[in-house]
C-alpha cells in the first residue's frame, strides 16, 4: 500500500489516519450542526406509508428516475456521476481502511475484487465523460436558471481530480504488481485475482507507449494515491458547506417527500413575536434548503417566471438556505433572533415575488430532489397575510369570502340562480337524499360565462339519469385557493361551514367540475396536516371525483350513448389541480376519444402542462403588466394550442380555465382561429339527441 512509507519520521498510515480523523471530525461537526438546525423547524408528520417511501427512494435516488426522464445530456450524465459516486464510496472506504491498516493486515482493494473492480475502473472513465458533458451543458449551452458559480466549478474539478488520481493510482498499482511478480515477490493485489481493468490497462499501455517507464508510473501512482486521498478528505469537509450538500440531503428529502398525496399543506405554525425564525417553517421545508442542487429545473418550468414575474423558485430556496444557515448559527449558539438583518419574507424575498406564484406544482413535479417549493411559498404567504401585507384586489376577494362565502362579492342567495333557469328541477340535497352531491364551486355558480357550462353539465347528468343534488345557497367556497393564499384561518372557517352543511345531507358520492374544489375536498378536507385526523368527517370514506371521471364512467357504462360522433380536432389543457396534483390525466382524454374527436396533444401536456396562471389565488390578484416581450401564462398557452395544425377547440375541464382562456383568446386576437370549449359542452353535443330519445322512450314505456 502507498501508506507503507515514512513521512517526516512517521509511517504513512499514521498520517493518513490522522488526516482522516480530523476531516471526519470536521464533517461530523458540520453535519451535527445541520441536524440541530433542522430539528428547530416546526413538526411535520412524514412517517406514513413507509413501504411507498422506500419504493420512491429506490426508484428516484438509486434509480435516478426523475433525472433519467428529464432534460437531455444531464439525463444520462447525472445518473452516471451518481452511480459512480456510489461505487467510489466502496472503493474509498477500502482504500482508507486498507491504507491505515496496511502495517498490520492486508485489506483487499477494489481493483483486486472481480466485477466490482471492473465496474469502478469503467465508471472512473464514464464519470469523466459525464463531467465533460455536464460542463459543456453548464458552460456552453447555458440553460437558463443553471448557475455558473465558483462552487459548481470547484466541485466539477474535485470530482474530475478524484477520477484521474484514481486511474493513475490504479495503473501504478498494476505496474507495481507486475514488477513484483517479475522479481519473484508475492503479489496479493490485482495480479492475484486477475480482475479485468479495461480502462487502467488501456491507459497503462498508452503511458508506456508515450515512453513513461513502469517504475515512473508506479511513483506517479503513489503520488496519485495520496492526491486522491487528499482530494477526498478535502471534499468530505467541503461537501456540507457547498451546493453539493445535496448529495447528502437529497436522499433524505426524497425519503421524506410529500407522499402519498400531493398538495397537502402542514398546519399553520405559530407566527408572531413568540415564534423563533426557524420555527416559521417545518423541518421538511428547512430540509429543502439543504437538498437543493441548484439545477434550475424549477425555474425553467415556472409559468410566473416565464411571464416576466420576479419569481424564481430556485432563488426562493436559495434565500431560504441562506436564512436557515444564518439563523441556524444563532439558534444553535442560543443567541437571540437577529436584529437589523433583512427579514426573509417581504424583504429578502419581496411580497410581489411570493404573490406571483400560481401554485401550479410544475416546479415540484420537476424537482429531482422533491423539494417543496409550493408549501414553502404558502408558508411565507401566511406570514404576509398575518401582517396584512396583501394587495387590494386580493383583500377584496378574501373579505368577500369571509362575508359571503364566495370570492365574487355575490349574494349567497344567488348561488343557485343558474339552476332555476333549467327546464328541470335540481334536487336540494339538504332536503332529500341523493346519490351524488354536486359541489358546484364559485366560478361555476356565479360567473356568467361558466354558468352556461354548469347548466350544460346538469343537462348531461339529468339525461344520464344521475341522481344528484346541490347545496343551494348553503354551499361556500371550498377554500382551495384561499388556503394557498396563506389565509389558513379563513380556509378553516370555510371548511367548518361546509362540513356543517354536509352533516345534514344524505349522499354517497361527491363530484365537482372545478379541479381546485376537487383537490380541496379530496385532500384538504380529508387529511389534516399531521395525517392523524379527518377534518371533515362527513366526507370520510366518500368517493370524490372530478366530473371528467364521472362522464368517463357514464360513457363507459353506456348510461351516456354517443349519438353523433364529433369530427372536431381538439387539444386538451390539463388543469394543474387535476393532473399534477391528483394524477387524473386519462379520464378527460377517454371522454374525448369516446365522442369521436381527434385529440392533438400540445407539446406541454399531462404532467408538463402549462398553468393558465389562475391558481393559488392569482385569479383574484391584478396581473403586473407583462413587459419585456413576455406574455401572460394563459396567452402563452393559447398560442401553444394555436400552433397545432387543424385544432379548432381548446378543451378545458375547469371553470377558471374557461374564464382565463376566453380572455386570453381575445387578448391574442385568436377568436376566429380557436374556440375554448368545456368538456361537458362537447359531451352534450354528442349525446344530447340520443339521451333525449332514450329518456322519451323510457317515459313512453312507463306510461
Amino acid at each position: 500500500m502507498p501508506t507503507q512509507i515514512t513521512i517526516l519520521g512517521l509511517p504513512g498510515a499514521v498520517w493518513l489516519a490522522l488526516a482522516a480523523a480530523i476531516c471526519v471530525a470536521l464533517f461530523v461537526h458540520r453535519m451535527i450542526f445541520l441536524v440541530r438546525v433542522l430539528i428547530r423547524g416546526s413538526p411535520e408528520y412524514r412517517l406514513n406509508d413507509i413501504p411507498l417511501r422506500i419504493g420512491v427512494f429506490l426508484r428516484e435516488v438509486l434509480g435516478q428516475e426523475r433525472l433519467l426522464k428529464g432534460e437531455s445530456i444531464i439525463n444520462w450524465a447525472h445518473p452516471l456521476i451518481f452511480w459512480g459516486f456510489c461505487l467510489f464510496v466502496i472503493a474509498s472506504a477500502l482504500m482508507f481502511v486498507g491504507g491505515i491498516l496496511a502495517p498490520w493486515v492486508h485489506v483487499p482493494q477494489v481493483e483486486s475484487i472481480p466485477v466490482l473492480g471492473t465496474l469502478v475502473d469503467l465508471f472512473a472513465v464514464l464519470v469523466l465523460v459525464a463531467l465533460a458533458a455536464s460542463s459543456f451543458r453548464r458552460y456552453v449551452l447555458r440553460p437558463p436558471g443553471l448557475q455558473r458559480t465558483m462552487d459548481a466549478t470547484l466541485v466539477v474539478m474535485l470530482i474530475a481530480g478524484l477520477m484521474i488520481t484514481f486511474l493513475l493510482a490504479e495503473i501504478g498499482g498494476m505496474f507495481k504488481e507486475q514488477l513484483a511478480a517479475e522479481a519473484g515477490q508475492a503479489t496479493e493485489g490485482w495480479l492475484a485475482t486477475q480482475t479485468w481493468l479495461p480502462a487502467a490497462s488501456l491507459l497503462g499501455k498508452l503511458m508506456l507507449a508515450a515512453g513513461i517507464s513502469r517504475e515512473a508510473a508506479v511513483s506517479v501512482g503513489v503520488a496519485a494515491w495520496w492526491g486522491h486521498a487528499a482530494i477526498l478528505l478535502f471534499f468530505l469537509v467541503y461537501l456540507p458547506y457547498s451546493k453539493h450538500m445535496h448529495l447528502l440531503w437529497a436522499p433524505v428529502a426524497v425519503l421524506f417527500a410529500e407522499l402519498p398525496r400531493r398538495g397537502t399543506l402542514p398546519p399553520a405554525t405559530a407566527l408572531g413575536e413568540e415564534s423563533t425564525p426557524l420555527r416559521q417553517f417545518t423541518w421538511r421545508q428547512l430540509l429543502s434548503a439543504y437538498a437543493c442542487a441548484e439545477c434550475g429545473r424549477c425555474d425553467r418550468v415556472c409559468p410566473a417566471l416565464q411571464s416576466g414575474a420576479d419569481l424564481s423558485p430556485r432563488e426562493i430556496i436559495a434565500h431560504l438556505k441562506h436564512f436557515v444557515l444564518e439563523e441556524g448559527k444563532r439558534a444553535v449558539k442560543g443567541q437571540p433572533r437577529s436584529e437589523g438583518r433583512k427579514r426573509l419574507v417581504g424583504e429578502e424575498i419581496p411580497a410581489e415575488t411570493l404573490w406571483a406564484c400560481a401554485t401550479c406544482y410544475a416546479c415540484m413535479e420537476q424537482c429531482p430532489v422533491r423539494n417543496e417549493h409550493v408549501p414553502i411559498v404558502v408558508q411565507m404567504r401566511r406570514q404576509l397575510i398575518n401582517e396584512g401585507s396583501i394587495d387590494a384586489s386580493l383583500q377584496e376577494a378574501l373579505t368577500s369570502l369571509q362575508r359571503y362565502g364566495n370570492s365574487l362579492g355575490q349574494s349567497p342567495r344567488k348561488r343557485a340562480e343558474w339552476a332555476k333557469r333549467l327546464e328541470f328541477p335540481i334536487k336540494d340535497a339538504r332536503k332529500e337524499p341523493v346519490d351524488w352531491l354536486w359541489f358546484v364551486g364559485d366560478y361555476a355558480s356565479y360567473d356568467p360565462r361558466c354558468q352556461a357550462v354548469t347548466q350544460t353539465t346538469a343537462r348531461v347528468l339529468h339525461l344520464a339519469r344521475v341522481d344528484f343534488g346541490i347545496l343551494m345557497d348553503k354551499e361556500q367556497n371550498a377554500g382551495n385557493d384561499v388556503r394557498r393564499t396563506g389565509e389558513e384561518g379563513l380556509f378553516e372557517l370555510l371548511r367548518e361551514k361546509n362540513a356543517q352543511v354536509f352533516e345534514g345531507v344524505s349522499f354517497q358520492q361527491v363530484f365537482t367540475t372545478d379541479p381546485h374544489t376537487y383537490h380541496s375536498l379530496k385532500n384538504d378536507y380529508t387529511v389534516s396536516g399531521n395525517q392523524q385526523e379527518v377534518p371533515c368527517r362527513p366526507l370520510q370514506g366518500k368517493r370524490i371525483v372530478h366530473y371528467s371521471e364521472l362522464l368517463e364512467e357514464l360513457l363507459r357504462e353506456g348510461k351516456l350513448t354517443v349519438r353523433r360522433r364529433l369530427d372536431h380536432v381538439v387539444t386538451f389543457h390539463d388543469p394543474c389541480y387535476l393532473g399534477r396534483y391528483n394524477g387524473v390525466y386519462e379520464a378527460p382524454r377517454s371522454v374525448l376519444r369516446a365522442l369521436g374527436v381527434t385529440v392533438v396533444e400540445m407539446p406541454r401536456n399531462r404532467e408538463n402542462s402549462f398553468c393558465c396562471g389562475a391558481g393559488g389565488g392569482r385569479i383574484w390578484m391584478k396581473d403586473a403588466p407583462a413587459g419585456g416581450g413576455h406574455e401572460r401564462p394563459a396567452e402563452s398557452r393559447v398560442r401553444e394550442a394555436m400552433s397545432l395544425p387543424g385544432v379548432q377547440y381548446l378543451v378545458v375541464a375547469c371553470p377558471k380555465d374557461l374564464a382565463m382562456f376566453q380572455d386570453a383568446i381575445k387578448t391574442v386576437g385568436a377568436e376566429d382561429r380557436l374556440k375554448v370549449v368545456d368538456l361537458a359542452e362537447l359531451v352534450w353535443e354528442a349525446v344530447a339527441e340520443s339521451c333525449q330519445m332514450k329518456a322519451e322512450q323510457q317515459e313512453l314505456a312507463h306510461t
Partner: protein
Amino acid sequence: MNIAVVLRQVPDLIETLEIADDGTRLDYGAARFIVNEWDNHALEQALLLKESEGSSVTVVALDFGEVDNTLYEASAKGADTIVKIPWDSEEPPALRQAAALYAEVLRGIGAELILVGCQSHDELEGPLAPQLAFTLNLPYVGVVRGVQPGDQPGSIRVFKEFPGAVVARMSVRLPALIGVLAAEKAPRYVPVSRIRAAMKSTPIRESQVDVPQAAAPVNVLRLYVPEAPERAEMLDGSAEEVAERICQILAEKGLLR
C-alpha cells in the same frame, strides 16, 4: 391620545333591500348587515394614529346587526377596548336618539378625539357625525381624508375635502369630533385566525345607558324602490319607416296634430 371610534351597522347592499309590509320602512329582519364603509375608514385612521402616536383606541357600537363580529374584527385589527351599547329594537335608532345614546357612552370614555364616518347610506335624517358633535358640544370637521398628529400638543391636523377636489389642511384643537371620508390608507385586512383569537381573548364591554326617547322629526309616508321608467323602443327599418314611426309616436303622445 385617547381616541374613540363609532362603528355602525348598515344594511348590506349586496342583497336586494326589502320594504316592510306597512310600506314606510325597510324590512330589517330580512337584511344582511355590514359595517358602515366610512366608519371603517374612521377605525383605520384611528389605528394609524395609534401606530404613529401610541394612542389608545376604543370602539363603540350599538348592539345591532352583526355587531359582535364587527367588534371582534376591530379588536383583531388593534382596537384596545370594544364597547357595545344595548339596543333591543330590530330597527336602528332615529338620528337624535342615536346621537344621545353614543354621546352618553362617549362622555364616559373621555376621548379627546372622536372619529365617525362622515356619512352612511341609511341616513334618513342627515349625517350622525355633526349631530353627535352638537350633542357633545364638540368642534366638528367633516369630509376629512386623513388625520395626523398636530404640530402642538393637544391638536391634530386634518385634511378636509371640498367639492372640486380642493383639500384644506386644518389644525384642530382637541377635544374634537371628526367626520371621516377616508383614512390615509385603505382599511387593513385582518386574518380570520386573529379575529378568532380576539373572540377568545377580548371581552366586549357592555355599556349600560338609558335609551332616550325622542320623537322622530321625519315622518315617512312611503318607502319604495325606484320605479322602472317605461321601456325604450328601438326603431328598425329604413329611414322612411323610422321617420314614419317617429311621427306616429309623437302623434300618439299628442305632440303632433
